[in-house]
């Protein structure tokens, strides 16, 4: 009797779960996008992004105010698109892209490295700058180029372009019968740098922007051994369907970015935050959706 009740309960629960999924699927396949009018009507963007700590793209000053190129650029985009404001929620990096995928964030206005893997799932706006992966190491390791990473202990942040680069490098090494000593996964860049200092790691593969910012603050401790692979652009991330029609938010933000590139605003912001102009691709031939 008891077993039967339990069985029925399980069946009912699984049915509820599956029907929920079906509804969810219906909503997803209808191919509707969030339009810029929707966003204006509800008073601004709803954004879930990373806890500040990606200087100089996205960080906070001592008082906790958001700062950086991403912040400034979104202010300019909002002026262009007539969006009154941005409501930010910050979470650990682990939750950022899942939040976008689950529809909890309109888009991710954060300098995210454009990689092939990510393009399978997401759409990327026109790039705003450089987000290449470089090798950060201690002076005593003697690492000067990617090929020196053979036999070394490497740290990467889970879900980062640094991790993707390390996996690609490992495949290349293994084809020649070589490998890293170990590849370790961290939840935060900060922990990686701690372990590089603790000598548990010989090198970390990290985006160039935070590396440059860190080395400016702590000169002499670590060194930048140069590019780990081919350069990567930094761009904002959208759900693919939001890059659809002309009113969809992805298309609209791209339009704004084009205007800001043409009138020199993007260049001005690059100079402000990086002290140099970074190369950008030709927007006309940029594919936001693969």
């Amino acid at each position: 009797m008891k077993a039967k009740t339990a069985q029925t309960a399980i069946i009912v629960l699984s049915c509820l779960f599956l029907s929920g999924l079906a509804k969810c699927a219906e909503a997803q396949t209808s191919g509707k996008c969030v339009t810029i009018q929707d966003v204006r009507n509800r008073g601004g963007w709803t954004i879930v992004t990373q806890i500040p700590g990606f200087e100089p793209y996205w960080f906070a000053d001592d008082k906790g105010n958001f700062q950086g190129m991403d912040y400034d650029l979104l202010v300019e985009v909002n002026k262009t698109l007539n969006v009154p404001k941005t409501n930010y929620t910050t979470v650990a990096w682990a939750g950022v892209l899942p939040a976008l995928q689950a529809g909890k964030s309109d888009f991710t206005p954060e300098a995210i490295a454009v990689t092939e893997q990510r393009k399978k799932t997401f759409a990327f706006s026109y790039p705003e700058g450089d987000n290449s992966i470089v090798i950060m190491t201690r002076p005593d390791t003697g690492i000067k180029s990617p090929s020196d990473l053979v036999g070394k202990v490497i740290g990467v942040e889970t879900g980062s372009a640094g991790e993707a680069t390390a996996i690609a490098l490992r495949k290349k090494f293994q084809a020649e019968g070589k490998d890293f000593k170990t590849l370790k996964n961290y939840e935060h860049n900060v922990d990686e740098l701690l372990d590089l200092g603790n000598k548990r790691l010989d090198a970390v593969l990290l985006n160039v922007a935070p590396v440059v910012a860190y080395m400016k603050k702590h000169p002499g401790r670590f060194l930048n051994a140069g590019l780990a692979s081919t350069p990567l652009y930094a761009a904002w991330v959208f759900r693919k369907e939001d890059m659809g029609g002309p009113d969809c938010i992805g298309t609209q933000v791209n339009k704004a970015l084009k205007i800001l590139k043409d009138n020199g605003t993007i260049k001005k912001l690059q100079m402000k935050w990086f002290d140099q102009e970074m190369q950008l691709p030709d927007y006309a031939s940029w594919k936001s959706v693969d």
Partner: protein
Amino acid sequence: MNQLEAMFDLSQVWNNTGALAMGAATTLLLSLTAIALAAVIGVFLAIVRSSPLWPLAWGSRVYVEVIRGTPLLVQMYILYYGLPSLGITFSAFTAAALALAINSGAYVGEILRSAIQSVGRSQRESAIAVGMSKLATQTRIVFPQAFPIALPALVGEIIDIIKWSSLGTIVVVPEATQVVYRIVSQSYRGFGILFLVLAAFYLCVTGALALLSRRLERRLTRYRARVSHV
């Protein structure tokens, strides 16, 4: 492809069976190591807690309060990221196993102590009255009665260790949770199905333990059932 299909893309599971199996094995090994160490710490604490040597009794009390009063996550962080500044550098696995054991040991100690104390005073007195030695009273009268009392709570503790071993993720132990998160984060494909598989894995292990514990408990308390039928 729509978002739902991407979330439940089964190929993400089939293409990564090797990595997932390694992760599961690491979780089990980490948990077993921690369980063994926690048992040692717990038994030691339970014995020492009622020791006539006051520094020992007092020390064990402080240990239990400090460990139970601070989060496991913080303890792990201190062991892995904090100690190197004092010149002690544990490997990730060692740090995670130690943190789990040190934490759980405090609880195991309390569980054992309360179980031993719950065995009636008359049991001890009767044993001594019939001429049993102090050691024999403990091993033949008190412990066999205390163990079934402690068993459900102890199994709960083991289950906790297995679940908390997922915190190994933050101190770079490649256990099951980290492996799943690593696969998910490469393309964010299949995260629905992968996390379901992960949850099912933990549930299978802990569910089997719970079942085993109930069987064992029934077996150990058969004498009570016999008495009640008389």
